């Protein structure tokens, strides 16, 4: 944990900044000042002030979107915001599980033990699911940081909770993530077959099809 991380996260203590951050992060793309202001229920000027503070702290990134109509009189490019790619974490006392997980993932890859790792992930998912017994899968996924959203009758996930590792060992980590989600569904009493790989750039590689009952 660095002081920077702590300072950046402390900014979110302010309820206006927090709701602006959530409005931008929850869209999964670029959000204009007006749109963010409306979502947070504050004026455009106040929203702009706080959004820029979040950019300064590295929680958001800003850019400019050209107006759709070109030529004279089409106005200045609009300032837009999106969630910053870098991650922040604060742990007290300090903990570092990523380094160890990265080393272990490397060993699994070297041993060619992906199938064993997937079986273990499936069981871990089942345990997690059973401990949340009867709750809807969307709620459990949200709680686990996947940021699920409705898409084509099913669910997609905006966030990969294993981001750093999924870039180092995509094949292993995405397969384990799929197994974990299938186990989770099973443990919740849902249909594990709903989870499948449907990777898209910038999102979690797992998607859930709609329930069979629908």
């Amino acid at each position, binding site marked *: 944990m660095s002081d920077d991380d702590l300072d950046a996260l402390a900014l979110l203590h302010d309820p206006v900044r927090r709701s602006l951050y959530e409005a931008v992060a929850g869209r999964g793309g670029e959000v204009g000042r007006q749109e963010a202001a409306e979502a947070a229920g504050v004026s455009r000027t106040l929203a702009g002030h706080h959004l820029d503070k979040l950019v300064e702290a590295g929680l958001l990134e800003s850019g400019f979107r050209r107006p759709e109509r070109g030529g004279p009189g089409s106005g200045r490019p609009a300032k837009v915001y999106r969630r910053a790619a870098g991650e922040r974490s604060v742990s007290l006392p300090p903990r570092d599980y990523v380094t160890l997980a990265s080393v272990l993932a490397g060993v699994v890859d070297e041993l060619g033990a992906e199938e064993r790792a997937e079986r273990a992930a499936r069981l871990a998912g089942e345990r997690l699911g059973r401990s949340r017994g009867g709750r809807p899968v969307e709620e459990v996924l949200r709680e686990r940081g996947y940021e699920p959203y409705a898409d084509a009758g099913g669910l997609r996930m905006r966030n990969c909770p294993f981001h750093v590792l999924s870039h180092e060992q995509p*094949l292993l980590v*995405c397969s384990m993530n799929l197994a974990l989600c299938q186990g989770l569904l099973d443990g919740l009493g849902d249909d594990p077959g709903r989870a499948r*790989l449907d990777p898209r750039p910038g999102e979690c590689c797992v998607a859930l099809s709609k329930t069979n009952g629908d």
Partner: protein
Amino acid sequence: MHLAELNIAHLRGPVDSAELADFVALLEPINALADEAPGFVWRLKESEADPTATVVHDYGDHLLVNFSVWEDLDSLWNYVYRSGHLEVLRRRREWFHRVAEPYMVMWWVPEGVIPTLAEAMARLERLRTEGPGPEAFTFKDSYTSSEAASLPAAAEARK
């Protein structure tokens, strides 16, 4: 600069065997996915007419060759790991032998240049013997095009 990429796989059986039937059936849709992927530039094809034809080469019949050029690292990474290609990759053990050596290599080429398969195989050999460097690297140990451009050999070529 553009990114050239070679990967090879050791087939478990002849391309026309029952063991490889699923794989051969997937060639057309997966190659079509590559051709339409953002940042795709070129790939080595055996035939324009037959999308299931694998590249014929002099390096052994058991060796499957994928050789392509992309605009940058991200576009190739997104195709390999963030498209329908990932699901095919997950099944690789059904069709290919596991190899301990590196089986994929990347390097930077000037835009418009299509490298030869012989050069690509030499780059892979270089990666295997000398480890990753700006002239032959992997996703795990990647180099930017500016790191490659500042090499003495590249400077020599520009004279």
